[in-house]
């Protein structure tokens, strides 16, 4: 039986990395990747043997077989794509900060009801990396304020991220509250051009109401195990330490080295989360029949 067919809009860093991850999936297959013009990304996908089109979203809408669409363009573009994909009955995974649908961080809030929707937003790479930690700490310690500092290598930040850095910080901050459960939040993004490139690193500060550090450590450890299921390179750099009511935790994300080398953990974590949702969707819909 066939795997569930997937379309990708936008052959940038995110879109091309997805091709590798989808190529390994037992439940999904990358059917078509589109752009609105001919580009190096399109050439790259062609070399990988993936079908391409330069007719943008229209090319994907024409193909009834494609059930799931990953949108890796920009917030503005996704706002245009979202209603079209909905009309065509496709399940959209939004990897832009448009957030037409609700935020999904698989380790925290993925459930069956989310898979019934037509559009789910993947927050941001920093959000996928830090929201679970805030949610874990909030569960046991009640987070009044969450502040994260996310450092990513310059090479792994594509033009989409660079031109929309406000959307990036605002979306991430909102997810720390809406999904992470913090009452208030702040996000700082730093790009570092060092060579060799730095690994994606996130510092998570939380101001907590119940400073029980043992419970916090345990909750964070459990959460890390949950994330590792779909992001194997996710690791604790500094286990939670506390000073007064401020807990500091640091994590690092090593990528799988698919489209970009292992330092690009930021690409890996958002893509791994999106593929995880798509696979869960496919398994739920076909009960595992399709790949047997």
């Amino acid at each position, binding site marked *: 039986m066939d795997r569930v067919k997937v379309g990708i809009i936008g052959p940038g860093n995110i879109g091309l990395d997805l091709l590798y991850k989808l190529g390994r999936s037992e439940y999904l297959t990358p059917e078509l990747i589109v752009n609105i013009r001919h580009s190096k990304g399109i050439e790259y996908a062609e070399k990988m043997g993936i079908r391409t089109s330069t007719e943008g979203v229209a090319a994907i809408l024409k193909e009834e077989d494609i059930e799931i669409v990953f949108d890796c363009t920009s917030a503005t573009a996704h706002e245009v794509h979202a209603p079209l994909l909905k009309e065509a009955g496709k399940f959209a995974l939004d990897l832009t900060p448009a957030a037409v649908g609700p935020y999904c961080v698989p380790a925290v809030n993925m459930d069956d009801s989310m898979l019934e929707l037509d559009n789910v937003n993947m927050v941001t790479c920093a959000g996928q990396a830090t929201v679970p930690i805030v949610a874990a700490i909030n569960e046991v310690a009640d987070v009044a304020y969450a502040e994260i500092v996310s450092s990513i290598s310059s090479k792994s930040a594509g033009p989409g991220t660079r031109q929309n850095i406000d959307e990036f910080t605002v979306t991430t901050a909102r997810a720390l509250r809406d999904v992470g459960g913090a009452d208030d939040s*702040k996000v700082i993004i730093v*790009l570092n051009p060092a060579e060799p490139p730095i690994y994606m690193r996130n510092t998570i500060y939380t101001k907590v109401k119940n400073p029980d550090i043992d419970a916090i450590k345990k909750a964070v450890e459990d959460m890390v195990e949950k994330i590792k299921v779909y992001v194997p390179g996710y690791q604790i750099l500094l286990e939670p330490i506390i000073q007064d009511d401020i807990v500091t935790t640091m994590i690092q994300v090593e990528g799988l080295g698919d489209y970009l080398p292992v330092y690009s953990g930021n690409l890996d974590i958002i893509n791994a989360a999106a593929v995880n949702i798509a696979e869960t969707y496919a398994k739920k819909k076909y009960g595992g029949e399709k790949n047997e």
Partner: protein
Amino acid sequence: MSRIFVTDTTLRDGSHTVSHRFSPDDIIKVAGGLDKAGIDMIELGHGDGLTGSTINYGFSEFTDYELIEAAASVVKKAKLAVLLLPGIGTVEDLERAKKAGATAVRVATHCTEADISMQHIKAAKEMGLWTVGFLMMAHLTDTERLVEEALKMESYGADVVYATDSAGAMLPVDVTEKVTAMKKALKVPIGHHSHNNLGVAISNSIAAIEAGATYIDGSLSGLGAGAGNTSTETLIGVMNRMNYDHGVDLYKAMDASTNGLIPVLNEKGLSPQTNLDAMMIGYSGVYSSFMLHAKRAAERFNVDVRDVLMELGRRKAVGGQEDWIIEVAHEMSKKN
């Protein structure tokens, strides 16, 4: 020679030194003096820019907007600037700063990451703000790359682009090379912001001007992160000596420090190692050991020590003529 525009960042870079504890009252005391001195642009707010008040950088007691409102209540002539680091502050934060009274913004990125400033520079220009592109840690990249990044900021609409020596790691020869290349490639004016960590902040500022920069940063007493910035007072003194065209009054800049900043710092338990009397020795060109004698004579005859030293310089007093100090001070006291 082109006119030099001076930005004073005592109330922004100096915010680091006071652990972001400047109050609206402090701002009023210092900004008023800076404005009267003729400073072209006064930068203020949290040391890490708009919404920099965080666990990571240190919380400030007052919001940037409260501080801007305080400054706007006393500043009549100078531009009021805020710092905005894309990745920390947003366009929305800038809109609030504008409403509070900011008339200019410095959009700062790491020296190789200018493209993250596009949305902020464009938005700032649309808001009608004077917009400065600020390429930080400029020692960490080569000249060619720095020029490329500066051209990007210019293309987004920046009115001025800075080579910013955030680490105080550049030597005058580095400043000369980088500013010369930027000046050659860009149509907009070039600026330089220095830190005195290697003791060459003034030399770097002069090197920048000689290489074509027309926007230079200083701070009163050199207050700022690390060893601090170029001292505004010294910068003005040196620029006077070099006959550069600028709009700042030396004595009034010194007064902004002595009567404005220093009492504010003392209240916070800080006593900066500023010695403006010594600076006047150099400025007037008199024998260094005259300093304490001139200070005593000025107190004795109730005259301004600066005038005493300037007069001694004009009379070309040489080493050993400490007795002239008494005569000059006495004579001045009769004129008062």
